[in-house]
């Protein structure tokens, strides 16, 4: 049965330096949760505290109903897959898989059966007698996952497990880990700095910055309704465009703002204190539309600076009259050359407004 994890005001300090600032988080049984954020945001530290590899300086960690703060790593029912794989180079794949079971004192027949089962799931039966140095990166990663599977843990932790793989293999392993989650149904926590991994794999994403949770939610919730400018900019590729804006007036229907030298009727009211307030407007590249009558609001002509042809979509890097830079993503293959002028527009319904403190309005 899957396991629930609860963090209450979790703090991590190194001397006077506080790395994690009172995090509250609940991970439901069987959920695939991804901790994502830039380097140094504390995502790996948080994972290691859950694993028991890092002492918890303050707050409480619960696994199901049990407080785990002082419980040794081996007693938490957790298995972890490391970024470096952490395979023992002097042992065969079989020995690597069996190490934890031998340590726990399992009988040989049970060990053989569990190793065979894990090898079957990961399709590494033919590698069992090889040493890690004779394996490719992807095969090593499978063995590392296999080592976690054989222990039949309640919780799987993954610490940037795909970072050392090439792009193609990452996509393949991403799918396999997602399938593994579907098959086993265990609670899994996955750490990555790659927002694509987070978006594609997670049931729930936890965005971290400087040891604080910026937002928690389902991938599309975070993508469509970011709680702040950081989350809005972090999730999505190409990144969200940000344009400085100023609040003009509040009509009966909603607020109007000045952005890129034009007035934009938002058609909704913002929670702001008064006119002339400095804002930041965010719009995703796929929500900027090309064409004379593109969208309800026109942004005028923009000069195309650079074109990226991805086959299925075309990405234009453009500059508006006032110098604001705007990235546009459009489906299909557009025959547009750098230097040409293109009319841009957008739908205010897809615009995100952020206050001076970065919070969404």
């Amino acid at each position, binding site marked *: 049965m899957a396991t629930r994890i609860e963090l209450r005001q979790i703090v991590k300090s190194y001397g006077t330096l506080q790395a994690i600032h009172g995090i509250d988080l609940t991970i439901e049984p069987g959920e695939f949760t991804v901790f994502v954020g830039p380097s140094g945001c504390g995502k790996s530290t948080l994972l290691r505290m859950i694993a028991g590899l890092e002492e918890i300086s303050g707050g409480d960690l619960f696994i199901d109903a049990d407080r785990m703060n002082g419980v040794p790593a081996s007693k938490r029912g957790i298995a*972890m897959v*490391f970024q470096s794989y952490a395979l023992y180079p002097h042992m065969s794949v079989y020995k690597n898989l069996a190490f*934890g079971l031998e*340590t726990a004192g399992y009988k040989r027949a049970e060990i053989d059966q569990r190793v065979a089962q894990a090898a079957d799931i990961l399709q590494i039966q033919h590698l069992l007698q090889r040493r890690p140095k004779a394996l490719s990166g992807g095969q090593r990663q499978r063995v590392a996952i296999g080592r976690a599977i054989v222990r039949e843990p309640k919780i799987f932790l993954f610490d940037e497990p795909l970072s050392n793989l090439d792009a193609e293999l990452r996509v393949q392993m991403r799918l396999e880990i997602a399938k593994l989650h579907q098959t086993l149904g265990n609670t899994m926590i996955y750490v990555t700095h790659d927002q694509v991994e987070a978006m594609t794999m997670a049931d729930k994403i936890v965005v971290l910055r400087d040891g604080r949770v910026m937002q928690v939610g389902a991938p599309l919730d975070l993508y469509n309704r970011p709680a702040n400018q950081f989350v809005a900019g972090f999730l999505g590729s190409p990144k969200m465009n940000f344009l400085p804006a100023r609040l003009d007036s509040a009509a009966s229907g909603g607020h109007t703002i000045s952005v890129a030298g034009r007035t934009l009727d938002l058609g909704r009211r913002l929670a702001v204190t008064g006119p002339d307030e400095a804002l930041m407007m965010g719009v995703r590249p796929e929500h900027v539309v090309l064409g004379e009558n593109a969208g309800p609001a026109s942004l005028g002509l923009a000069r195309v600076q650079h074109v990226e042809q991805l086959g299925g979509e075309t990405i234009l890097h453009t500059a508006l009259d006032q110098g604001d830079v705007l990235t546009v993503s459009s489906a299909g293959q557009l025959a547009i050359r750098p230097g040409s002028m293109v009319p841009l527009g957008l739908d205010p319904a897809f615009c995100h407004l952020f206050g001076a403190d970065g919070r969404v309005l």
Partner: protein
Amino acid sequence: MATTSIARPQAGVRPEGGGLLHRLFGRQPAGYLFLLPWLVGFLGLTLGPALASLYLSFTDYNLLESPNWVGAANYVRIATADPRFVAAMRVTLLYVVLSVPLKLVFALLVAMAFNRGLKGLPLYRAIFYLPSLLGSSVAIAVLWRQLFAGDGLVNMALWQLFGIEGPSWISNPRYSLYTLVILSVWQFGSPMIIFLAGLRQIPVDMYEAANLDGASKMRQFFKITLPLLTPVIFFNAVIQTIDAFKAFTPAFIISDGQGGPVNSTLFYTLYLYQEGFGFFRMGYASALAWILVVIIGAFTAFSFLSARYWVHYDE
């Protein structure tokens, strides 16, 4: 279509314009010039004397008269009629068998203690390395004689602390060799530094993975640390064993060059020295030296052959 062909020199045909220098040193005379200081030293001070001693080992030579060819007589006598050779070999082997493992174990224990993130580590490392620099010197050997003499510091401490009247450790054939073994173990600094470097190379992730598996510290040591340290253990074992076979100064100083009492500190090199520079039997001493070369060579070859079964090299 125009094509460009590149002329290649024919095999075995020397390009035009090669002088004497070219014929001697090929196309890289400057390389040999840089090599020259080492080459002169190697040929004049190592290879030359070594080959000369090989020749002398088949002669009767007293330094004053010309060497007299005696064939394998020196080797036959060593093998069949030299009780001091047997004594020296026994003492040396005992010294090697005792001092090398003890020194390596001690060095590894200290290195592991240092590897736990000690404050002021560079200072401790320097202090513990110091005996390795001084240990084989005459001064330390003299100090050792003072420590383990009948009225030495060790016996004074034994008397003061436990009321025990100790023997003269260096004058008693039962204990004299062991004082030299202790002196050797005390010089653990060099292997300790190498062990420490080896321990630092083992990724922390492996211990963390073992922690999650519930492996005890002892199991981690035997299943992770020791196997991953085998390349370093192998290196230290070979170097220290060769050094132990060649040990000379401590035995020379402590026994006044005699190897006593009752041949108990008669190291092989000391016996060789006595034969060569005490009795001026240079031919015989040369034969002894070549037997030592063969013994050390055989040990080293055996070590390398056995390494494939117990030394684990990563990547």
